[in-house]
């Protein structure tokens, strides 16, 4: 067999068996525990799950942005075939904001309030692409135009507080695109925005993945957004991936009780108004004190003996249209 040249379907990003723990006053908190994720060029993968389940920590691990109290205990993060966990800080910095870009939830805290927008958008272009200031500013204006900011030339001279929330988020996206990344990580990029601005921003990101073949890792709580924009979905609970599938299969035939609970608790635009919403009973898990066995067992309506003793592995699911559908549940083999 011949080795194929970098083929189109080879994964762009492969996270294998990643575990990340934090040292805290309350003891060791394993925020990510044996996570596996695969993302192909041009694809949008949504990462959903309970607050505190390890979504942001997973994203920060890819970028090497975990704090000093964090330790990667196990695993590999292969990006275009290279293990990011083995790179030194300098090499990682070269990849960050260049081949991988990140958009954070709060645009105000990620933009520097005392620097002009032009300076902040142009600086990385100058650094990574070795352009002169005037060239970098030209390119910055083009990028602002691309994210639908009117009068981009004038806007370059303004400061972040002159921009509305939605416009600041679009500036962040312009910056993320400056260097034509292969992978864009967007952590709750539209949570603070209304639906019309949200649609504007996500349509833009989606168009870009189509045009440039970049992959998008989209972290969100909004199951409507997932349905509209993601091809694949991974569901996290207490640091583990408990289900992963194509969006259609996940919504059509969920194969994990946590995913079912999640879907059932969202009010819909067609449901009975004021009806009691279904909720997931019990409390979110305490990562410093997880039960043995399945972490969802204490809240699971279908729990049985096996669940309380043995952690279920992520395995191919049955009764689904997606061959790559996987779930980690003793009850849904």
């Amino acid at each position, binding site marked *: 067999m011949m080795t194929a040249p970098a083929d189109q379907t080879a994964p762009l990003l492969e996270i294998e068996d990643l575990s990340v723990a934090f040292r805290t006053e309350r003891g060791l908190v394993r925020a990510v525990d044996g996570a596996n994720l695969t993302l192909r060029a041009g694809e949008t993968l949504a990462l959903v799950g*309970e*607050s505190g389940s390890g979504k942001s920590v997973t994203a920060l691990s890819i970028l090497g942005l975990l704090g000093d109290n964090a330790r990667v205990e196990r695993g590999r993060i292969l990006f275009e075939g290279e293990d990011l966990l083995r790179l030194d800080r300098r090499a990682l910095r070269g990849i960050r904001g260049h081949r991988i870009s990140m958009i954070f939830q709060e645009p105000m805290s990620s933009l520097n309030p005392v620097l002009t927008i032009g300076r902040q958008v142009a600086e990385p272009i100058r650094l990574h692409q070795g352009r002169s200031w005037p060239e970098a500013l030209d390119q910055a204006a083009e990028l602002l135009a691309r994210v*639908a*900011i*009117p009068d981009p030339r004038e806007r370059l001279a303004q400061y972040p507080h002159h921009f*509305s*929330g*939605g*416009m600041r988020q679009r500036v962040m996206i312009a910056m993320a695109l400056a260097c034509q990344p292969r992978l864009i990580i967007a952590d709750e990029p539209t*949570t*603070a*925005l*209304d*639906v*019309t*601005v*949200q*649609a*504007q921003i996500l*349509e833009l990101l989606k168009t870009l993945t189509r045009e440039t073949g970049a992959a998008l890792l989209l972290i969100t*709580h*909004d*199951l*409507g*957004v*997932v*349905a*509209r*924009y993601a091809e694949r979905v991974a569901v996290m609970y207490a640091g583990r991936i408990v289900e992963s599938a194509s*969006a*259609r299969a996940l*919504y*059509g035939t969920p194969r994990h009780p946590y995913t079912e*609970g*999640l*879907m059932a*608790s*969202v*009010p*819909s*635009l067609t*449901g009975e*108004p*004021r*009806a*009691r*919403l*279904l*909720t*997931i009973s019990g*409390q*979110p898990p305490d990562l410093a004190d997880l039960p043995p066995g399945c972490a969802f067992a204490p809240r699971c309506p279908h729990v049985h003996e096996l669940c309380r003793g043995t952690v279920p592995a992520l395995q191919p699911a049955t009764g689904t249209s997606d061959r790559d559908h996987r779930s980690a549940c003793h009850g849904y083999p």
Partner: protein
Amino acid sequence: MATREREPTMNDAPLLEVTDLSVHFPVTEGVVRQRTIGAVRAVDGVSFTLRRGETFSLVGESGCGKSTTAMAVLRMQPLTGGRIVFDGTDITTLTPAAMRPFRRRIQMVYQDPYGSLNPRMTVRDIIGEPLVVHGLAGDRKTYAARVAELMELVGLLPAMAGRYPHEFSGGQRQRIGIARALALDPDLVVCDEAVSALDVSIQAQVLNLLMDLQQRLGLTYLFISHDLSVVRHLSDRIGVMYLGRIVEVATRDDLFGAPQHPYTRALLDAVPIPSPEREAERPHRVIPGEVPSARNPPPGCPFHPRCPHALPQCRTDAPALSARPDGRLVACHL
């Protein structure tokens, strides 16, 4: 002080009447000597009415003035113009002393369950603080009993009263915030993005709680949220704001069933549906253009630069909010 269980009221006078409310923020220039060079018309002639026991929601683009309107109703934001009548009394210009009894009756639940609770106070003192501030705490026994009653009301174990906020989950912290808002037995509770920071399963618990409490206590809610599915689930009536003005007011079924104002339609069109099949079938339109600035609002209808149906008249005359045959209010020339 105890929580009243109000009977479904016979009193159909509105609880709150807001008339022609405006809040303008000065725009200043200069570092040493500041000059006013203009104004941000954050709220610009807003009128609406809250009936007793109903949930009225305000929705609209970010920056359109929802929070500013809420702060004005709470009298935490000075008005540029307009009138606020609460339970028959004009509270627009009441002095702080005269305002005191009304402050008790209008309470607020904040967005951020993490940031809005003092980390150094026990849950007992967080929930009881409004009682102390208003001199209603009584002796220690009455105080503890009232706090315990409030905790039970929102589904927290009174035994947890001695704990600190960091020992609670996000949903529990939001319950603490709700218990605190209920301490003074208010009539009106303002919820500004009160469930947005919660994840969906916890959000569902808090929404159920808000609906239960409304039924049991006859509360009136002024609810603000970007999540239109949540708004539809909770609300009796909805006001849609655009650039400091209300462009449509309708009942839940009218608004979601047949939105009239072009902005309302665009807003509902943009709500993503949690079904990949249905999303694949529907067109994904976005409203063209930028939200105009409240500093230089366009002449005429504030929505005309982005409106697909704009007429020449829309560029020059601002349409008034006027009643349609079905009872809803719409500000549109079409």
